[in-house]
């Protein structure tokens, strides 16, 4: 891997940029690997990267039915935050934020992590009480989160409408200053480049069609559209398709897959300096460095694998955006898209060993997986390499739906995750 630096740019500038190497290759599959990761999204690539970089496991293949980073990694609203209520969630999401802070340097790849602040609006007494409880819980876990009055919220985000005459007036906000955004495709590419440089094979356009298990039930490898590939350890990181892939090994999952939509506006000059979220009117918004407003909607009500959703969901979201920011009422929306998110009953992820020997699963990130990408890959790589859960991943078992030891962010976090 050629290191990116100001000297490299200067050198290439003198020879018309003819010397940049490919960031990763498209190798032919080997007959077998030590570890196979199913799914080359952010979480899967991060898992492969940390397997190679931190655990010395480099004989790894990441198998992807489409192109890398082409699923939810390329379809989200790039919000990073860790202000979750429960200790277990705070543990994993803040682990991720700490990795985000040094990620560009770690990968030698600019992931454009921008801790511009995530502000969550309170519109009623219940919101205010819940957010204050979150703030105190976060502080006990060493996570920054602070209460702002409506006036302070307006000062932090000037286009915000705090008129008491609003239908849902803003009465305050919770602000996590370390939260922010990152560049989604740079995250996938940075991890892919770092993993490939350490010997990981990224097999794109290769669909897993089956998981082969031996006489003793243990995993022996995967059937793919390019033939059988052996491995004694398989990690499934397939997001919305986790149920489909785990079915191949005969493991039923507590998951349902829903469409989640987002949209962007025409690009405009800098106007929204932070991330603003509102669970009550249900919308979230930030502005990309290109100038587009990036707006997240909610899930559709029905399960689907269609990667598209209903227009009325987007309209509802834009109603909320215009309520919060009346100045955007004449903004044109350029594009909308949908991803398929796998949702667990308690809205917390599953990062675990499974009843099948050698089969590991990292799924259930629901509507908010992007923020966890580095932390998820980091602890999942540990879980696979050591064959035992990383302490941060330990509570996120598959068995919790049998034992009842849920991590019920569904009840704690209202709507948006």
């Amino acid at each position: 891997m050629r290191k990116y630096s100001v000297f490299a740019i200067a050198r290439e500038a003198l020879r018309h940029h003819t010397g940049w190497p490919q960031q990763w290759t498209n190798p032919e599959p080997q007959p077998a690997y030590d570890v196979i990761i199913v799914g080359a999204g952010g979480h899967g690539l991060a898992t492969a990267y940390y397997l190679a970089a931190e655990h010395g496991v480099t004989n790894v293949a990441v198998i992807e039915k489409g192109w890398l980073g082409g699923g939810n990694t390329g379809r989200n609203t790039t919000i990073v935050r860790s202000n979750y209520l429960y200790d277990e969630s705070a543990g994993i999401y803040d682990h991720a934020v700490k990795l985000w802070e040094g990620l560009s340097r770690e990968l030698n790849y600019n992931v454009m992590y921008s801790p511009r602040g995530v502000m969550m609006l309170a519109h009623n007494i219940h919101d205010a009480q819940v957010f204050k409880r979150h703030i105190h819980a976060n502080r006990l876990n060493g996570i920054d989160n602070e209460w702002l009055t409506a006036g302070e919220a307006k000062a932090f985000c000037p286009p915000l409408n705090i008129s008491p005459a609003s239908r849902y007036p803003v009465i305050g906000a919770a602000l996590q200053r370390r939260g922010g955004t990152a560049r989604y495709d740079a995250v996938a590419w940075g991890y892919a480049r770092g993993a490939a440089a350490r010997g990981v094979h990224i097999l794109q356009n290769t669909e897993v069609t089956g998981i082969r298990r031996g006489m003793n039930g243990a995993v022996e490898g995967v059937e793919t559209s390019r033939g059988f590939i052996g491995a004694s350890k398989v990690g499934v990181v397939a997001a919305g398709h986790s149920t489909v892939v785990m079915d191949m090994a005969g493991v039923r999952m507590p998951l349902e897959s829903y469409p989640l939509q987002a949209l962007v506006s025409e690009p405009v000059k800098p106007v929204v300096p932070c991330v603003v979220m509102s669970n009550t009117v249900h919308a979230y918004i930030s502005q990309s460095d290109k100038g587009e407003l990036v707006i997240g909607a909610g899930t559709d009500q029905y399960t689907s694998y269609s990667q598209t959703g209903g227009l009325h969901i987007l309209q509802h979201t834009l109603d909320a955006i215009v309520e919060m920011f009346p100045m955007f009422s004449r903004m044109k929306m350029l594009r909308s898209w949908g991803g398929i998110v796998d949702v667990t009953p308690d809205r917390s992820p599953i990062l675990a060993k499974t009843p099948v020997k050698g089969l590991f699963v990292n799924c259930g990130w629901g509507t908010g997986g992007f923020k966890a990408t580095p932390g998820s890959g980091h602890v999942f790589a540990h879980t696979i390499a050591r064959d035992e859960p990383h302490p941060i991943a330990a509570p996120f078992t598959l068995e919790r739906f049998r034992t009842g030891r849920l991590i019920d962010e569904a009840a704690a976090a209202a709507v948006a995750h």
Partner: protein
Amino acid sequence: MLLIRCPYCEEERPETEFRHAGEAHIARPADWSTVTDADFEAFFFLRANPKGVAYERWRHIHGCARFFNAARDTVSDKFIVTYKAGEKKPVVGSGK
């Protein structure tokens, strides 16, 4: 937006009149005292979540307010058939 035929009202109405109500044909245990943790997990948490034909409950909440069942393709989102609650599960396409 989906167009959904309510089998009670016998007409197609827009999705916003309806509420999705989860997987259909999940039998509630008759005797809770004999239900193991594994049985409860399967009943309460594990879901088919199929890519293909899904059997699911819907409620015509802003119409007749009644629950009914549907078979729908989760790839195209097209409804194959809707039928009244209590009617036998129809076998269609890849549905199980």
